[in-house]
């Protein structure tokens, strides 16, 4: 996802000189080409995330579309008040890009696990929280964000994510993106945990169970129309690599309440009780309630 984002942004920035990329001193082996090709549209602000966000918003106020790149919680929670006041209150066109959603940086430890970032960003006014599921969605959404002017948060995995979308999807802002259809239940998910979701679907297929899969790339704009269209006689499972507090599950439940929808969901979210856990992403997903078997189990007789 990371490489797709940078490649797409570079292509867009070559034709739009108003695109500026700022890094908080991260992106080794990832951002060099951008810097080399477009040095005047690239700034390394140093390891100073709070000032970086203020800086980005100041630049954005002069008519630029500014992308701020860092990893984990550094460009979000570390700089939360700067995002709230300088970006959202001023409503300036800044896109905050965090690489390393969920347990992407698993072995780096809890400081590097992004499990509360959606909650923090989703709480802010004017903020569009955007979370692609795979490299295909990443490309489409990066292009969307270059054209858009809203303060935004782009939540990316790291690298090696499988392609889940078989075609280039026609993604509409605020709508779900259906990746697979099926009659035996529904999974709504966001982000790179889609890899496990698809694996769960495949496991169920071998048992004759076929479920629908929807990616939810716009977390701060949940569509009541899309929710209403789901078959609520079968399980509706919401999967996210984020705590249950304030993420996709919360967003869906809020929309259900506000639109008075008659439906129930089953949340599958990251546990937060073993903060010192170390291991790769797959291991940490497994032990924190996001494993493939667990996801699949909600569609079996229990």
């Amino acid at each position, binding site marked *: 996802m990371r490489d797709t984002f940078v490649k797409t942004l570079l292509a867009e920035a070559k034709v739009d000189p108003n695109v500026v990329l700022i890094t908080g001193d991260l992106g080794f082996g990832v951002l060099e080409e951008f810097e080399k090709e477009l040095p005047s549209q690239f700034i390394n*602000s140093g390891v*100073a995330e*709070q*000032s970086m966000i*203020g*800086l980005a918003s*100041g*630049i954005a106020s002069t008519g630029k579309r500014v992308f701020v790149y860092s990893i984990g919680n550094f460009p979000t929670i570390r700089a939360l008040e700067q995002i709230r*006041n*300088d970006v959202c209150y001023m409503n300036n066109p800044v896109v905050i890009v965090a690489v390393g959603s969920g347990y992407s940086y698993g072995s780096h430890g809890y400081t590097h696990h992004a499990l509360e970032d959606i909650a923090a960003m989703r709480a802010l006014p004017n903020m569009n929280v955007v979370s692609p599921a795979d490299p295909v969605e990443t490309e489409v959404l990066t292009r969307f964000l270059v054209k858009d002017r809203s303060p935004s948060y782009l939540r990316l995995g790291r690298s090696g994510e499988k392609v889940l979308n078989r075609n280039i999807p026609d993604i509409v802002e605020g709508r779900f993106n259906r990746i697979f259809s099926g009659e035996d239940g529904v999974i709504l998910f966001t982000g790179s945990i889609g890899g496990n979701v698809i694996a769960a679907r495949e496991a169920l297929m071998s048992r004759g169970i076929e479920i629908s899969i929807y990616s939810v790339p716009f977390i701060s704009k949940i569509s009541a129309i899309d929710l209403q269209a789901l078959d609520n006689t079968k399980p509706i499972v919401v999967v996210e690599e984020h705590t249950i507090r304030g993420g996709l599950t919360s967003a869906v439940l809020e929309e259900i309440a506000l639109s008075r929808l008659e439906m129930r969901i089953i949340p599958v979210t990251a546990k937060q009780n073993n903060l010192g856990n170390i291991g790769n992403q797959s291991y940490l997903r497994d032990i924190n309630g996001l494993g493939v078997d667990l996801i699949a189990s909600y569609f079996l007789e229990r």
Partner: protein
Amino acid sequence: MRYGLAKTASDAEALAKAARIEILKMTSRAQASHVGSALSVVDILSSLYAGGANIRNDNADSVDRDIVLLSKGHAASALYSVLAIQGFFPLDYLQSYCEDGAILGGHVTSTGVNGVELSTGSLGHGLPYGIGIALSRKLYGMEGNIFVVMSDGECDEGTTWESALLANHHKLNNLIVIIDRNRIQSLKDTEETLRLEPFKDKWEAFGWKVHELDGHNHLYLLAAINETCDGPKVIIAKTTKGSGVSFMENSVLWHYRSPNSTELDSAIDEVLAEK
């Protein structure tokens, strides 16, 4: 500067005097805090809006205007008074300061207020934002200076020193920081709270051009503002909190208190009596 230094300084003097009276009335009427902070910074803002900065109501939308950010957002009454007197918005707006449904609140907001470039109120935000504008203008060939007016207490914030590095690194000679050095912060003297001295040395060590001067002297302020240099510049404006009203001067109390009607009358008399 459109006119000579002396003429601009005398305009600034008159502007500051008129603004002081508005500040006193606003804070008294609204029973709002921070009158001391506003009186402390009002000469700095007056110097800028009387011509020290190239920003007037008639060029407020031009891309090469000078930009003034009041980072110490709690001194909102000073900025609002100066802007209203200079015609950026109707003087009437000042009457409803801090009231229910008012346009102007206790901390600087840009929402619906002509002339205000950045909403502030949490300290340490103005400088990084100003650096963003200054850097963008430098990178993309736009004219105009950026002025960031800060408090000295604000220099406790980490972003101030992150920014000190950033501005010097990018040699932002279109950036001028003016620090309202009244030496009093929320509870006590700055030096008792979190020592800033040797203050000038710190900025110089970060590579900034430093001026230290009387922050109530418009001629000195304007001369320092006008001087060109090849990197960022900071003016440490030595000021008196509550300046112009003897019983408010150098007192933490007037960071919070607002004048009652008797105090208001005597405060206005003092301001008017000053030459």
